[in-house]
């Protein structure tokens, strides 16, 4: 499983680096402002969900900003 994970992570980063060649100008960003693209709207709901997952799953952390701590969530 670790080898497969490493391959997928490498692929994501490769796409990221190659994609950096494209330049998106400020007036071309209207689509990125649509509600479906703005996940900051869901930050508070995501915190609750991350806490629920932390208490029941071994893999804590990542982009969900959860750090563990307290209540047996470690």
């Amino acid at each position, binding site marked *: *499983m*670790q080898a497969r*994970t490493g391959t*997928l*992570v490498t692929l*994501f*980063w490769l*796409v*990221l680096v190659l*994609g*950096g060649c*494209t*330049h*998106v*100008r*400020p007036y*071309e*960003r*209207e*689509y*990125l402002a*649509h*509600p*479906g*693209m703005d*996940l900051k*709207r869901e930050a*508070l*709901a995501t*915190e*609750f*969900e991350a806490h*629920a*997952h932390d*208490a*029941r*799953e*071994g*893999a*804590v*952390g*990542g*982009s969900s900003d959860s*750090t*563990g*701590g*307290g*209540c*047996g969530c*470690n």
Partner: protein
Amino acid sequence: MSSAPSVPAGALAAGTQLASAACRRGCNGLWVLLLMAAVLFCGGGRVRADEASGRWSGEVEGRGNYFWERSTRVIVPTFKVTAESPSGVHLKADYLIDVISSASIAQTGGGKDGVFTELRHGVGSAVGKRFAVGDSELDLTVHGKYSTENDYVSYIYGVDSSLTLDDKNTTLNLGLTRVDDHWEIAGPVAVGQSRTPSLGGFTTRAGVSQLLSPTLVLSGGYQLGVLEGFLGNPYRRALIGPLPHMENHPHERLRHNFDAHLAWFVPRTSTSFHLFYKAYIDSWSIAALTPELRVYQELGENFVARARYRYYVQDHAYFYESPRYPRGYTGPLTNDPKMAEFESQQLGLKLEYRLSFLARSIFDFAKETWLDLSFDRQWCTSSFGDNVSATAGARLPF
């Protein structure tokens, strides 16, 4: 008129004295962060005075969360306020109360089963400021969270930063967070076990977000977590032979998280696709993968529907044994379901609606309010079993 932030000398001097006094008492980074927050805020206040014609903007959010599984019910009302000044100072404050009702021996702290209700209060805050650095923008934020139940207190605090580059096509993120937990165990403890154990540690995360096209964004990052101290549940027991023993987890844990997120907007149908992927491994030999797909569909300007599927799979910790450890076993002990090998699948639906019909009425101020309702069902092969969660919320921008 200068727009450069400047900090009043009195505020700096007072802050320095406060931090020095705190450190003399054996305190730690929390006070330093509070000082940094004060400096950021004071600097912003000066700029705000220079830009008196601007106005603050922000959002008020209230939310009710509900979680149900075989042995646990959780109700969590939460409240959050965010605000940002024209000069780039931004503030956040939130509060939650976690009402946990559990029917388990582990949570009751004794040898008998029963329903146990527990309250957790959490208060969080953050202060930050955006600075112009040439053509780029630097955002520095200090944050802190205080969380308490009847038997523990947790402090989580840290610094987050982000830097935009290349006309905001690229954003780099860097953060450092400290965790500081203290228990006061109710009920019996094992011989040699402290009644007031503690846990300390930190997490640090580095990430990058890149615009790939006007409709495509890719982001990813790595987070390292280091925890040291009491990492078990003081009320849970594991069996060695026929006899229950207090859970005894290793006192150190190193966590590695790799995450990636691809977001794609389809203009013709106003559909957004989000693909998340997280890979995790830690020093207890738990390895986990979490792919997730979310699809957002806009239906007109005031309605958004979201469907999601999340899959989670993990290996077991190296010291996990089920249903019992052999007689004479002396290594780390656990009876924690999340130390086992298991997988889960989650399906969810969310609906959002904007109250634009209130425009030009006496409730015109609320015309940008979004109401949302979501429902998630998770099927899980661990002994926690399946669960259901639901949330309802309202967000009012101002």
